């Protein structure tokens, strides 16, 4: 239990970065959601780490709420994907560029 916070934080930062990259480079809406989940998890990891080193439950509580939010978001997000799919049979976001300028 004496792993320095730094290590975890670096991991979380990397995870955050990978997630962000995913959002930027993947074209499938579902995969993009997943990448957003990765980023949220990165945040969670950081929170828990801080909670440990600060001997404070607050961080963990925050993680708890982030989890709820993540769940809610995914629900709605998937709903949107389904709605879109009904219309254009594709989950590729690049197909959506009618609105521009």
């Amino acid at each position: 239990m004496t792993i320095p916070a730094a290590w975890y934080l670096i991991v979380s930062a990397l995870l955050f970065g990978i997630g962000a990259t995913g959002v930027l480079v993947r074209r499938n809406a579902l995969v993009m959601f997943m990448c957003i989940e990765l980023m949220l998890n990165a945040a969670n990891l950081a929170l828990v780490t801080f909670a440990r080193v600060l001997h404070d439950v607050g961080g963990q509580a925050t993680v708890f709420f982030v989890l709820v939010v993540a769940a809610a978001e995914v629900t709605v997000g998937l709903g949107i994907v389904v709605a879109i799919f009904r219309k254009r049979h594709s989950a590729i976001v690049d197909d959506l560029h009618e609105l521009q300028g």
Partner: protein
Amino acid sequence: MTGVLATARTVPDVLVFIASAAIILGGAVGVVASKNPVHSALNLIATLIGIALAFVEQQANFLAAVQIIVYAGAIVILFLFVIMFLGVDRNESIRLEPLSGQRPLAVGAVAVVTGGLIALMAAGGWYSGATSVIAPTDPSNDVGALGKVIFTSYLFAFEATALLLIIAVVGAVLLARRPPASLDAVPRADEHAVAAGEELT
């Protein structure tokens, strides 16, 4: 860094950390890199488990459990369900990138962000906050501590989640529900392509 490394630690901890880190990052890369959404989802599960491992390693056992149950157990399943439901479980070519310059810029920007975060955290001494401001941790009974906090300091937030879930449910229902035919009675000027699409389903 060196200062941090200097602190004493036990071998198993290190091993566990390395394991979890490997799983986390590997899974993450898998999510981003795998052609097939299904594989991405599976990789996501790996990452989540890795995270859970890291939680356990940091005495957040309850959260680790929630992580497995809610995330791996519910969210990812939901993902997979939708993937299958929509039948988009085909491979897509990762190589292809219609937007010119997207990837280099993306990598560059993300690199700056990640590097920047790490550097700034390091500059800030990784953590500088006062200890146990909200409530002290209780390694023996983290569930209790957590629960207590949620029902005291975060009472309002906890109640707010109720509304959050309600709205999420309503939204999901509203979105996923097939629009009643009556609504399509009025075809829109800007949607001939769509009308065509409807016939296919």
